[in-house]
Every structure is written in C-alpha cells, then in structure tokens.
C-alpha cells in the first residue's frame, strides 16, 4: 500500500515473536485505562497516604521531633509491624477502588463492541488475551500497593539510626506477599465481573458489591449462628487476618474468631478459580449455541 498511489503492497518487514504480542495487549490496555481523568485522580489519591506515612517515618527517626512530641511521640511514631500493616491495609483498599475503575475499561469495551473475534483471530490465545489485560491491571495496582510499601520499608531501613531492615525483613516480605495475593484476587475478580457486565459503571458497582455483600451476609451468619465460619464470606476480614499473619502482628484479633490460614487460602483460591471459570466462559471468539 502507498498513501500516494493507493496500491496494495505486501508487508515484508520484521515480525515480532508471538509471545511478545501479549505486551501489546497490556500496553494498549494501560493506555485505555489511563485515558480517563478518573483514573488519574484516583491514582493521585492512592499516593497521598504513602506521603503521609513517609513523613511519619521521617519524624520517628528525627531526634528533635521525638523530643518535641515527648511520650505521645513514642506511641504515635512507632515504626513496627502494626505501622506497616496499616500502610498495607490502606493501600490495598485504595487499590481496590482503582481496580474497580480500571478493570471494566480493560474488558467491557471489547465485549460491548464484539471485538473478540478480531482480537482473537490474531496470534493471541484466550489465555494470552486475559494475561495481557491482567498484566495491565497488575502493573497499575502494583504502583499503589507493594511498590510504595516496599519504598517506605526501604526508607525506614535507611533512616533508622540502628540496623533495622535486616531484623524486620519479615515485614517487607509479608507486605510483598500480602499485596501480591490481594492484587491477584481483585484483578481476576475485576476482569471476570467486567466480562459479564455490559456497562462500565454497573461493573464498578458489581465489583464492590461482590466484596461487600457477602461480607454482610457472613457477618449475619456469624452473629445468628454464633460461628466463626461465617467470616469465610467476609473478604475484608479474611484479608486482615492473612495480612496480620504475614507481617507477624498479633495484637488486634479476638482469638475466638480466628480462622485457620488454610481455610482463608482455600476460600481465596476458590474465588480465583471461580473468576477463571467466568472468564473462560465469556472470553470466546464466537458464541457457541448449543442444542
């Protein structure tokens, strides 16, 4: 083809390896996700708490500031597992809000405009398609969860007058693991629910509802039947338990309501599996009419 002559000509140039096409999907997915101001505003909001926590770490390692704050300062400015648990929890829930905004933009547009037959007619498998979208979401959510968490951890290690990082390595590893588990769950859930809902606004609501409504049901089950197993429907509580165990923080939990780690992991894995089944059913080049 030529713009001036308007003739067709075959392409004879370089071709990229097939496995790299997933990155094209991820790149275009990211561009789509960031094409709206809502995403930018949410992203900025997500970065405000880390700035506050950074200032707290600075103050806690500043002798003059500690002296000025006296005994209150010792309690408020304690940089330990509980402090980083607070960081992780806040960042994770902000990431949830960001995911509920981005995930529908990544997948709903393709479904609504019936773009899948064209997209999947290229050298992209259905798994590759989901992986590309997942990578876009994962990358965005990483920038507001484990990346700032680990940067704060590194800054505390640097600013502390005594060797701190090596003796508290469990906190760093725990934050990384906890954030990755959370991102994996909400990314899959977000993509799966978005693939089933046509309207982006509704999809955002549905993502929140799927987290919060079972939590309410779980609380009712726990209250009425006096059993801790109702909490297995409560994702926020399950994640709190998991994060506390990962960061080795034990000071806030009522022992009677403790859930076994294996039960929590099983429930989260079930959620991921269900999301994958939903994606497998929905992400197809063609609808198969049975019967």
């Amino acid at each position, binding site marked *: *083809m*030529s*713009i001036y002559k*308007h*003739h*067709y*000509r*075959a*392409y*004879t*140039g*370089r*071709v*990229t390896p*097939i496995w790299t*096409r997933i990155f*094209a*999907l991820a790149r*275009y997915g990211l561009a*789509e996700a960031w094409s709206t101001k809502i995403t930018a505003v949410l992203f900025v909001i997500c970065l405000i708490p880390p700035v506050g926590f950074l200032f707290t770490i600075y103050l806690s390692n500043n002798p003059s500031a500690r002296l000025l704050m006296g005994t209150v300062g010792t309690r408020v400015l304690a940089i330990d597992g509980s402090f980083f648990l607070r960081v992780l929890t806040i960042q994770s829930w902000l990431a949830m809000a960001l995911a509920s905004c981005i995930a529908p933009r990544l997948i709903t*547009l*393709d479904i*609504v*405009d*019936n*773009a*899948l*037959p*064209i*997209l*999947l*007619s*290229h*050298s*992209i*498998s259905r798994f590759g398609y989901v992986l590309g979208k997942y990578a876009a979401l994962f990358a965005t959510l990483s920038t507001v969860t484990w990346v700032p968490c680990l940067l704060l951890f590194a800054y505390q290690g640097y600013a502390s007058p005594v060797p701190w990082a090596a003796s508290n390595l469990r906190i760093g590893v725990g934050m990384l693991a906890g954030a990755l588990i959370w991102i994996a769950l909400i990314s899959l859930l977000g993509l799966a629910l978005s693939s089933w809902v046509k309207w982006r606004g509704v999809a955002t609501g549905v993502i929140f509802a799927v987290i919060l409504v079972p939590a309410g049901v779980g609380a009712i089950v726990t209250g009425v039947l006096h059993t801790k197993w109702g909490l297995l429907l409560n994702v926020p509580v399950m994640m709190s338990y998991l994060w506390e165990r990962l960061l080795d923080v034990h000071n806030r939990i009522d022992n009677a309501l403790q859930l076994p780690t294996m039960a929590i992991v099983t429930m989260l894995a079930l959620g991921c599996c269900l999301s994958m089944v939903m994606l497998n059913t929905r992400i*197809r*080049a*063609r609808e*198969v*009419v*049975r*019967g």
Partner: protein
Amino acid sequence: MHWKSSYIQGTSGQWETYVNSMGTVELDALEVRIGGRTILDRLSGVLRGQAIGLLGPNGAGKSTLINTLLGFHRASSGTARIFDLDTYRDRAEIRSGIGYMPENDSFIGNMSGVHFVRYMAELAGLPSTEALERAHEALFYVGLGEVRYRKVNSYSLGMKQLIKLAQALAHGPRLLILDEPTNGLDPIARQRMIHLIQEIRKEGSVRLLISSHLLRDIDETCDEVLILKSGRIAALCNIEEERRSNHSFMELETAGATDKFSVSVRGLGCECACFSGGRIKLVLPEHIEARDLYRIASEQKVQIRKMHVRRDSLEDIFLRAMDTEGERPAHVHL
C-alpha cells in the same frame, strides 16, 4: 515446521511455489461437532484458487468452516490445513499470516480508526513504528484516510466494513478471510468493496477466501468456489474452467430449410432440437465449432440470423449443486 511458519509470516521467497504445489486450504474428512450437532460433515478437498468463494444457504456451515480454519473450533475428526499447517495445532503460526474480516460488527468503538488498525497490526506481529505506518497506508488504501482520526463508533456502516478490511490488510497477510464483505453496503459502497477485493487479488501476494450469500460477489471476485449444503460439500469447482467446459450450449434463429439443416447438424454429432420460427437449440460436441455450422448453412442456403452461445453462470452451478439432494459426494465436479 519452521520453514512453513516463516512462509506464512512472509519471510520466505519460496512462498508462491510452495502454495501452488500444496493448495491454500486442504480439508481431509473434516468433521466438526458443536453442542452434539454435526455442523461440518466429512469435508474433503483441496482449494488452490487465488480467490476462493464460499457459498451456501443459511446454516450450511460457512461460518463454522471459517471459524475452524481460524482455529476457533477443533475438528471432531479429520483435519483442516492452511498452507500445510494444521488449523488447530498450529493456529498461532497460521493466524500470524491471516487477515480476518468478520461478518458482524467487530471493533473497539472507543478508539480512533488509525489507533485501532495499528493495535491490530501490532497484535499481528508488526513492530510499533511499522504498525503505525501500515495503519495509515491501509486506511488510505480502503478510502478512510480522511476519517482516520475519528472514533470508530462514529463511522457509518459502510465505513465500519472498510475499517474491518483495513485491519485485516494492515499486516500484509498471506490469506485474507472475508466473511460477507458486502453485508449492508449500498450499491456504490458494494462496488467499491468488490473493486478493492479484485485489486488485492490482482496484486497476487494474497490468497482470498470469501464467504458470501451473494452469487454476484463471488462471481466477480473468485476463481474457485466451494459450495456447502447442510454441512457437506455440494460442489467444489474452478469457476473459469466450468465456464470454458460449458460453452457448448447454442441457440440459433434461422431462415430457410431448417429441417434439412438440422439433419445435417445432427450428422456432425450435435444434439439438436427444432422449434417453430426456425429456432434451433444445439449441444455441440467438443470438436465442433461455430464455423462448421456456418459452412453447412452456406451449403444449404440457410440464413443464420442469430447465434447465442450460452455459458454456465455461477447461478447455474449453484442451483445444480443445491439440486443434488440425497447425494453425498465428497468432491463434486459439475
């Protein structure tokens, strides 16, 4: 397998020789069952044409065959091969060299035309810069150059058809699969689409597989046709050869000693039927030509006032294929 993969991705110079010897699409007892129903029933044949037409009534299995060739459906038994690559096992390699224009609307409406075509070209394996360049070229080529920065969902139906063609062309495919390319187009837009397809065919580097309900579209663009009926092959033939082999139907309008003339013509080995008004219908054997008839007419002082040689149209071929009710030929020569 590696060298075939490089062929399909357009990096080998031996491409044409290879395709001509092997055929574009090879079906070997291909059976596809979906939801317990047999949609394609033991299809066998080799499609070698530069432009292959896929004809058949609704529910004949055209779209299922295209989806199987794209690797969307797995063969229940038998095989389908494109450029000697298995359509399911080697679908990633095959898709790299295929441009697909689906029947229904299929695009990302929120993107501008050039952004969408570039995206598709990158997914097909073009590096980002080349993809952008080819996207611009493809859009100008199909006639959407002036509207390439508009969002796709603001395009008219005809423009949407054209952008589907542009994205299928942008990466320079070896095989272009067009599913109902003139669907919903007005006569002028249809003519433009047909002209584009003819031009692509003439360029020679792309094989075409065109599915359509419209016999005229296939007639104007294809040199080979595969006719499906109820999931079976009703006919597989080279349109040009069929036309050449059926040039023997002739209608004459004569004046003079018609009876004597018809007896002499029968003597040449022609089948002949006489009608009132000097009209004669003939089926000529291969070795008889029009000049033989003129010679006899001259000898017998018969005037030939009108001579009409009737060729088989694609419609005749299609209707005959549809008439083969009950037969199950795997490969029918008309």
